[in-house]
Structures are given as C-alpha cells and as structure tokens.
C-alpha cells in the first residue's frame, strides 16, 4: 500500500517533470538544438516570483505563479537572442556551449538571490489532505496535477488550433519549406522559446510551492531530470515527454520507499534500460541525424 501511495504521489508530481520535458522537446523540435539553460531559466523564473512574493507578501499564490511563468518566458526570449539567434546553424557546439554559459550565469543569479540556501516559498494549500479509502492524497499535489494538465491542454490547443501552432509545426518539420511559405523562422523560434519558458516557469513555481521550499540546487537537478524525461519520451515528442515525466516521477517515488540513497542511481539505470532497449524513446522516431 505504501508503494501504491508513493506511485500515485509520483504521478501527480511527475507532471512538473513532464512540463520541463515538454519544454526541452519543443525547443529541440523546432531548432534541432539542445537548450541546456532551459531548466535553470525555469527555476530562475520561480526565484523571480519568490523575490516578488518577498517584496509583496500579500500577493496571492496564483499571481506568484503568473510572475514565475512570465519571468521564465522572458528569460526564454533572452536565451534565444543570446545563444541561438546570432550563432551560425553550422556550429552546434557553439550553441551548446553558449547555453552552458547561460546556465552558469543563471545558476549564479539563483545562488545570489537565494543566498546559497533553500528559501521558503508560498504553499498552495498547506497540510490539506483527502483520505480516499486507504490512500491519503495531498491536495496540493492534486492541484499541481490539475494545473499541469490544464497547461498541457492549452499548449496542445495552441499547437493544433492557432496559426502560430501551424507555423511551429511547419518549422519543426521542414524549416526551409516553412520559410518558402512565408513563415518567419526567427519569430516562430522566438515564440517557441517564450512558450516553453512559460511552461517551465510554471513548473518551477509548482515544484517550489508543493515543497514550500525553493532550493538553489534545483537548476542542475532539474536539467538532468528534464533531459532524462526528454530522452525516455523520445526527442521531439510531446506525448512522449508527458508519459515519460509521469513514469520518472512514479519510478522515483516508488524507489524512495525502498531506499532514498539509491533513487538517483536507479533513475540513471532506468535511462540505460531505455537507451539500450528502446533508443528512440517511447514515442519518438529514431532520427540518427542531429
């Protein structure tokens, strides 16, 4: 029963991993490049909202979340401008390294804001629980789940129901052909970075809120987790990122009931299993070109 409980908690919290994974996957989808600064930009957004909350403690929690989303979205645009816009497409190493530079910079900003230690973050509904038979559900986890699902549905609506979404998918499929149809690569890419940034900021704020703590060590941890989710789900696949996020969340919490120390090691072994048995990821098409 402990295990079932843990797995349910894991799935609920795993939605934040899924959001981060979607962000990585979206950017990879349109640019075919890795944005290593993405997770730290998300956490930096959450820290911006923390600063806002510390300045104005009367701020309601939903507004704090919005600040985080907006901040991370803006950071996404800055990352696009500084790490992708002006570096030639032919130098994939340069963009990778530039995002590493951005990661180090944002990490430093976070360290500076947080004073090098975890900071209190406003919780959504502290200590509220629902009992469902033998299960004991934390309401804030349920809220995290609900908000994430809404955010994902909104994203899918944007991708499949708006002109911007059509442009994004066209660029992901065939950048040159998309350009020939009059789609501006520059604007589409920038929009993708902002959208993924917003999702990441939301995820960062929810991670902080459900623990009521925002750790300064999160950027690196979340980068690793996000990349794992992206690869397990299949590069460029949004449903894959969602499923993989839930899977990794559940797996983590499940292992935690056995041993906290072995948790991260087991997650790494999980990714090895996937890389060997299903290198394309859950939903991805194996594209050996990069």
């Amino acid at each position, binding site marked *: 029963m402990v295990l079932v409980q843990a797995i349910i908690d894991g799935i609920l919290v795993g939605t934040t991993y899924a959001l981060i994974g979607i962000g990585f996957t979206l950017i990879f989808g349109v640019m075919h490049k890795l944005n290593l600064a993405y997770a730290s930009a998300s956490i930096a957004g959450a820290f911006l909202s923390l600063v806002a909350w510390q300045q104005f403690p009367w701020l309601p929690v939903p507004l704090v979340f919005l600040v985080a989303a907006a901040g991370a979205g803006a950071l996404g645009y800055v990352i696009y401008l500084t790490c992708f816009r002006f*570096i030639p497409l032919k130098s994939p190493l340069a963009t990778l*390294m*530039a995002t590493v*530079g951005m990661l180090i910079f944002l990490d430093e900003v976070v360290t500076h804001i947080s004073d090098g230690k975890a900071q209190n973050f406003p919780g959504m509904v502290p200590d509220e629980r629902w009992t469902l038979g033998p299960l004991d559900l934390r309401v804030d986890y349920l809220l995290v789940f609900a908000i994430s699902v809404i955010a994902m549905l909104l994203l899918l609506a944007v991708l499949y129901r708006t002109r911007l979404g059509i442009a994004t998918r066209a660029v992901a499929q065939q950048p040159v052909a998309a350009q020939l149809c009059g789609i501006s690569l520059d604007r589409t890419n920038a929009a993708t970075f902002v959208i993924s940034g917003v999702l990441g900021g939301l995820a960062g704020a929810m991670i902080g809120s459900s623990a009521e703590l925002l750790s300064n060590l999160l950027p*690196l941890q979340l980068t690793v987790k996000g990349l*794992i989710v992206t690869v397990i789900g299949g590069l460029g696949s949004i449903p894959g990122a969602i499923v993989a996020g839930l899977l990794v969340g559940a797996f983590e919490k499940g292992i935690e009931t056995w041993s906290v120390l072995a948790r991260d*090691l087991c997650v790494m072994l999980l990714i090895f299993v996937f890389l060997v048995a299903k290198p394309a990821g859950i939903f991805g098409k194996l594209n050996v070109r*990069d």
Partner: protein
Amino acid sequence: MDYLYGLSQTIGVHTILGLSAYVVLQTGQVSLAQAAFYGVGAYVAAMLTTLWGQNIVVAIAGAAVVSAALAALAGFPALRFKGLMLVVATMALGEAVREFFFNFDFQIAKGNLKVGPAGAEGFRQIRYFFDRGWTTGEVAGFIWLFVAGIMALLWWMDRSRIGAVLRAVGEDELAAQSVGINLTAVKVSAFAIGGAVAGMGGALYAHYTTHIEHNYFGVLTATFAIAYPILGGLGGVFGTLIAVLFVQGFLIYGLPDFIVRLSTLAENELGVTLDWLKQHASDIRNFSFGLLILAIMNWRPRGVIDERVVRLFGRLFAPRSPHA
C-alpha cells in the same frame, strides 16, 4: 609563490581534463562522461598508492588503464547514439558513476587509522606527496611533466594519419564511412584515448588535493571538460591550454584582483571612489563567468583557436617555398 604553484597544479590537471574531451570532440561526439573517467582515475590511483602502497607512476598508469577500459566498455553501447542522445547517455553514465562513488565504502585499517573511500564523506588522507616530503613546486613540476607529455602526444597524433581519421569522422560520418573508415572502431578508440587521458588527470588531481569526493565528479566538472576545448577551439591542443589559462587563471583566480587593482588605479588617476566595485569584485567575477563564455561563443563559434588560425600560424612559420 606556493600559491602560484598551487594555481599551476590546478591549471595542469584541468588542461589534462580538457584534452581528454578534446580527443572525443574531434570525432564530433559530445561526451559528458569525462568527469566520470576522471573520477575513476582519481579513485583507482588513490587506492593504489594509499591502500596498497604502490608507486605514483604505477598508480597513474593503473588509473589510465582502468579509465580507458571503462570508456571503451561504455563506448560500445553509448556510441549507437549521436548528437543529443549521446550527450544524455554520457551524462547518465557520468551520474551513475558519481552515484556509485557516493555509495562506495572500502576502508582498510592502516595503523590506528582507517583509510580508503568512505561513501559520501569521500576519500581522505591521500598523503603520497606529503609523506615523501615533495614541495608544492615539485608536485607542480611533476604534473606539468604529464601535461607536456600528453600535449606532445596529442599534437603528434593530430598531425598523423590518426588525427586525419578522427577529424574525417567529426566532419562528415557518411563521407568518412564511404572511404572505408570503420566508424565504431574510430569512435571507441577516441573514447578510450579520452578515458586514459582523463584517468591520468584524475590520478594527479587526487594526489595533489589529498581529498576527493563524489560531488566533484558530477555534471559541472563534465561541463568544464568539454568547455575548454570548445572555447579554445578544436584546431589544436594549444586552444585547450589557452582556454584553461583563461578560465582558471584569469576568470577564476585573476579577475577579482584585476578589478581591485584597476579600480584603485582609476581612483588615483581620476579621483573617483569605486568602493562598490572593489567590494563586489568576486561577485562581478561570478556573474561575468557565464556571460563571457556566451560572448566568446557568439564572437567565435568555432572557438578562439580554430582551424583557420592554426593554418595561418602554420603558414607563418613554414619554410618559405620558392614559388610563394
């Protein structure tokens, strides 16, 4: 003076770490596992000298062999992937190795003291140099002996057929394959060479710091390893050395001092007070670190010393041909 020797030790081992990634990057692969091979080398060498009383040279050789073997072993499955997938696969490998050391407990009683790796606490008391009374300068010289040897070897490799093959794979795998190059063999060899170099670097690192911990061998060190050659450029081994000198010597060590001196000079010359600058010198350093990497990559996407610069220098020093 001792401080400068200490700094030169750091620069030395970081150069070796960067060179280990340099070999792998030449074949177009981004490996985030270099820190893991570095860590394996550190632990193996430290155990050889501290637990079993081996000579340091034997320990370094042992570290190189074990790291190279691990790299080759890991290389076979990992090299099924390219680009991004490889980045993540090697990162996972690196983290798995780090987690292994986090849980690795193997202590032996030496006299009334227990020595050896102790899980999260790390491996203390690696006193080889200390017990034999080596001075900091001697240790620095010993390290640079290895740096020079490895650089010379890689420089020679670059100019030989091996280097041409590695670069061919890095530039265009399909073209390389169609002229009969065995991709897997080349990539696994590059991985193994990189692993051996990283192992030696780790062995030296373990002995000059005397205390190693699993934390150090994580993603951050792995990122530094690939950062040096990418920043310095893949045109030649000297790019990596220059990048390490710039990052470790200037950015990390020299910059705060530089800011303080510059603002003192400005105060004396211009009669302004720049106390804020002086007080926040190390903060400015921390913030400008990432931004400078960003700026360099925008300015020179192929690194500071790229192939063109190398060719230019080559022409400068080449013997004049009568036709020119």
